[in-house]
Structure formats: C-alpha cells, structure tokens
C-alpha cells in the first residue's frame, strides 16, 4: 500500500501492524530531548512513575537554554537541578556556554538525521523536520514516559502536502514561506497532521532556510514539518553525524489529507502582525509601523544565514536612536563563525546588543522583555499577546532582513528601501 513519508518513519518505529491516520500506536524514540523548563518537571513525573534510570542514556540529551544565563535564583536552582540530574543519569548535557538553543544545536551536533523519531520537551521540536526527521513537541508527562520507556503514544497523523513552486523574490526567506503557509491553512489548519514540503521551491532551500520553515509548522497546529531528505540534507550532515540514515519520501500515490500549492513568485516579504502568527500581511501593508525593539534570534531564525542577512543591512548603518536591537546567535558555533566573519563587529558598530545564545526574550523570560505599549519586530516564531513581556506589548514576526531594516529605519519598511538608501560613511 502506498505510504506517506510520516507513515514510513512511524512504521519503522513501532510494533503496530497498522500505521494509518488516526490509529493510536506506540512509537520508539531515537532521541529524547528536554531543556531547563520541561526537563525538571518531567524528572519528577518519571520518578513518580517508578523509573529510576532512563531507558538508554545514549539517546537522551538535555540542553540548558531557556533561562540561561540564569535569570534569577529560582532559574539558577532549576538549571542546577537539570545539571545534577544529567550527571546522575549519565546523559549528554549541553550546559551554559557549551551549546545554545536546543533545536538549532541538535541539528548542528548531528543528533538529527532523516527518518529519525525525536521526542522533545518543547513545541518547536518540529524544527527537525527540516532534516526529514519526525521531531515532535511533547509535554512533561509524555517526556517522562519517553525517558523511562523510550516511547510515546501517537495518533498517526495525516499529511498536508505543501508544494512551493518556482523561485523566490528578493528578500524572501524561509520565514516568509512558512508565514504564507500559515496564512493559507490557518493556525489550526494542521492540527493532527504533519506538513510535508516539496517542489522546486522547497528543494532549493538551504538547511538554514528549511529550519525556519519547519520550525513554525506548530504555528499551523501541525505535529512536524517534513522536508524529504535530498542532496542538500546529505551535504549538511556530512561530517556532523555517524548515525545511519537513508533518504525517503512519500509514495507518489500516497493519500494526503490535502495538497496546497504556493507559487513563490507571488510571495513578498511578509510579517505576522499582533497577536497571531496567522495574522499575515505583506511587509508593505505594515509600512510605517513604529518600532521600539528589534530581536534577531531564536530557534527559528538565529542561524548564520539570518545573521548574514541582518549584517548586510547593518553594515555601515546605525540602529535608529529610538530603537534597541538585540541579536542572539542561536548557538556557540554560530556565534564563533559570526565573529570570524566580522558580523558581530558589524552589529556592535551599528549599536546593536549581541546576546549569548538563549531562548531569552522570545518566550518573555528575560534578556529583552517588552514594557506596556512597546512594539517589537522579531525573527521569532510567536507573537501571542504578552508573549515577550507585557500584555500591552506587541510583536511583529518577520525575516532577518525585515527586522534589521526596521531597526535602522525605526519603523517597518521593505528591506530593499533601506539597502538602496546607501550607507552613512
């Protein structure tokens, strides 16, 4: 029987005889991941389940990233308990200063390969779909069960196939593509399904761009956002991982819940206006919106590609006097490469703050939260009411070019306008 990619992946990770949409099956994990927020809650649940050791310490990885560097004493205690637990269990732990933001990091470090099943205590675990893995976000009790038994229950999802057709317009990135998809199917359009990205416009995306697309699959309600592995995936994985994998894709005659087409020549740079990732408009329609803060970073768009785009705008220009700009390289490796390429110097020269890798203000934790009445343009993935601070603040989601251009102009503009305006000596 013809199968979708997700059915093939789940089928290879279950003893269930039937893997068809809606069936509840137990799925084995190749990797179980959590952070300083989801981990400690899960460890308590695991203890109450009566499990003293993790199912396989080689398959468990923990990342300190949400409240790092420790925001306050309570966060420090949480980070301490995470580290102690990792040492006691003998699992891999990326501590403060040693890793970065979990999803970018796990890809970078070779934990994620096509066809793998990765259970993560964070909703943006769907990012791993960029490499053709079934990465999916789970809560802490699910996570506790995964840590104890190496598996989770799963209602087999259907697949919405998204075809990106043709080539992109200037200043259009992975961020704009996924915003276009969310605008098309709605913020609940993908619930109980996965998104699968195909077509010439998908195949031409770099891994950094695919990460941006897959990252926001959950903003459409989907379990993950899969890019079938190809040569670009293989090139990215070379030298990063010793894990075996093979490229698979949906059978041509597989049954999809829905098929949608996004002609890329019709997608301009987009922004998601407050307070929903589905509230998507072309950047031109938000033109002139005054900005107090710009935040370039997070698990969606803190890659080297994003930093290079931002630096292109900031080079020889200044952050508007009314605006504060915060740049957050997603991982230590990205940070170092950005130093080598001179990008960090460009940011500092422009008057931006360069923060250490952290989830930071993206979730309203610390390192750049917003006051009442403030408005931010960010490359993050959520603009829910109060997400980054005060309930009376506003967040516009955008790509790194648009965000950097807003920082320079003090308001939302098309990045082409800023780049064509020349540099100030």
């Amino acid at each position, binding site marked *: 029987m013809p199968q979708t990619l997700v059915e093939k992946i789940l089928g290879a990770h279950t003893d269930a005889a039937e893997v068809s949409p809606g069936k509840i099956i137990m799925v084995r994990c190749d990797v179980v991941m959590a952070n300083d927020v989801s981990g400690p809650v899960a460890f308590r649940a695991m203890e*109450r389940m*009566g499990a003293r050791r993790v199912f396989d310490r080689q398959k468990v990885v923990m990342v300190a990233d949400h409240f790092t560097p420790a925001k306050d004493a309570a966060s420090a205690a949480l980070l301490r308990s995470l580290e102690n637990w990792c040492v006691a269990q003998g699992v891999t732990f990326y501590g403060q200063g040693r890793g970065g933001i979990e999803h970018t990091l796990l890809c970078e470090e070779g934990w994620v390969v096509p066809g793998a099943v990765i259970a993560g205590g964070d909703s943006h675990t769907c990012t791993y779909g960029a490499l053709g893995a079934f990465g999916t*976000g789970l809560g802490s*009790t699910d996570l*506790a*069960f995964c840590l104890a038994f190496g598996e989770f229950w799963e209602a087999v999802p259907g697949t919405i196939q998204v075809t990106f057709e043709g080539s992109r317009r200037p200043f259009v990135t992975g961020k704009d593509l996924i915003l276009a998809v969310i605008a098309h199917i709605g913020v*609940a359009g993908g619930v109980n399904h996965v998104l699968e990205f195909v077509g010439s416009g998908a195949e031409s995306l770099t891994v950094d761009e695919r990460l941006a697309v897959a990252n926001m699959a959950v903003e459409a*309600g989907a379990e993950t956002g899969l890019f079938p592995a190809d040569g670009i995936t293989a090139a990215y994985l070379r030298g990063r991982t010793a894990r075996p994998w093979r490229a698979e894709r949906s059978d041509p005659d597989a049954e999809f819940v829905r098929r949608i087409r996004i002609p890329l020549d019709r997608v301009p740079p987009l922004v998601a206006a407050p307070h929903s990732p589905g509230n998507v408009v072309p950047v031109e329609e938000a033109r002139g919106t005054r900005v107090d803060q710009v935040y370039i970073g997070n698990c969606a768009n803190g890659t080297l590609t994003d930093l290079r785009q931002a630096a292109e705008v900031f080079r020889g220009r200044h952050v508007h006097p009314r605006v504060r700009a915060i740049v957050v390289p997603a991982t230590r490796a990205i940070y170092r490469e950005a130093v080598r390429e001179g990008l960090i110097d460009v940011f500092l020269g422009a008057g931006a703050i360069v923060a250490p890798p952290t989830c930071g203000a993206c979730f309203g*934790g610390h390192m750049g939260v917003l006051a009442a009445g403030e408005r931010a343009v960010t490359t993050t993935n959520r603009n829910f009411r109060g997400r980054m601070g005060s309930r009376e603040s506003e967040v516009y989601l955008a790509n790194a070019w648009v965000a950097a251009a807003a920082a320079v102009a003090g308001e939302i503009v098309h990045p082409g306008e800023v780049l064509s305006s020349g540099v100030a000596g």
Partner: protein
Amino acid sequence: MIVEGTALVIEGDHVDTDVLYPGRYLNVVDPEEMKRHLFEGLDPGLRARLREDTILVVGENFGAGSSREHVPLAMKAWGIRCLVGKSFARIFYRNCINLGLLAIPCREAAGVARDGSRLHIDMGTGRLVVDGRRFTMQRLPGFLLEIVQAGGLEAWARRRLAD
C-alpha cells in the same frame, strides 16, 4: 465514567498557552505555585470564579502553542473537573489526557454552554448533557480512556513497571 459540574466559559478561539500561563513563570516546578499564575495573561479574575465543580468550556484550538504542561498541571491543581471545547490543540490535548484530565471535543455542546450551565458527561455512552440538552460526543479511543481511568499516564506507567 461520569463527570458532572458547572460551566465556566473561556471566550474566544485559539487561546494559547502563553496567555494561559505566561513564560516568565516557567521556572516554577510546584503545581501549587503554578496555580497562582493560571490565566494570568488572559484574565487573572477567572481564578476567583473557579468552583470545586468547575468544567471549563472553551473554543476552537484551545491550548495552542507552547508545550508547557504548567497549564493543565495548574488546572488540575485547582481541581477543574474537565474541559469541553470546540476543538483542542494537539500538545495541550495530549497533556490533559496524560494528566487524567478529560478534554472533550464537542463543538455543539461547547457552543451552547453558558457560565453556570450544568454539564453531565457519560464517557461510557458518549452522551453529554448541557442544561438538559443532549449531545453526542466523539468516543475517546480505548487506549486514551484507559490512561484517563488509570488517573493519568504516570499511574498507567507505574502499573506497566509493576507487571
């Protein structure tokens, strides 16, 4: 399995877990402390309206966004009996079931229930009664009912380890 209670309606669709439990409180691990921050980004006044038999009635895609289990943990700590909604976001739904907190999708029932409505839910027959009006809900898959009846995935797991 029968659940009865009084409705408290949370208006709106796509109510996300950030407004239900803002991110700045994610460094809390004790459910008793989580209780104090439930609904904080939405309407902190809702906490004072919780009764010992409250059933939350919610809209479409309730619990969208973050996987933070702090939301249903706080709801459970408040003693909320169950949720009836037009539809639920996937991770939130899983978290509820795993905690033994029933989240029942029933668009029609969620549409007619008002604050103070009396709800009677019979998981065995799949019948849901709101102020005397009868509705049929989708049956919970057997395995999930087993988890809820065990009192949640923790208890279900303890049983599995004991076997």
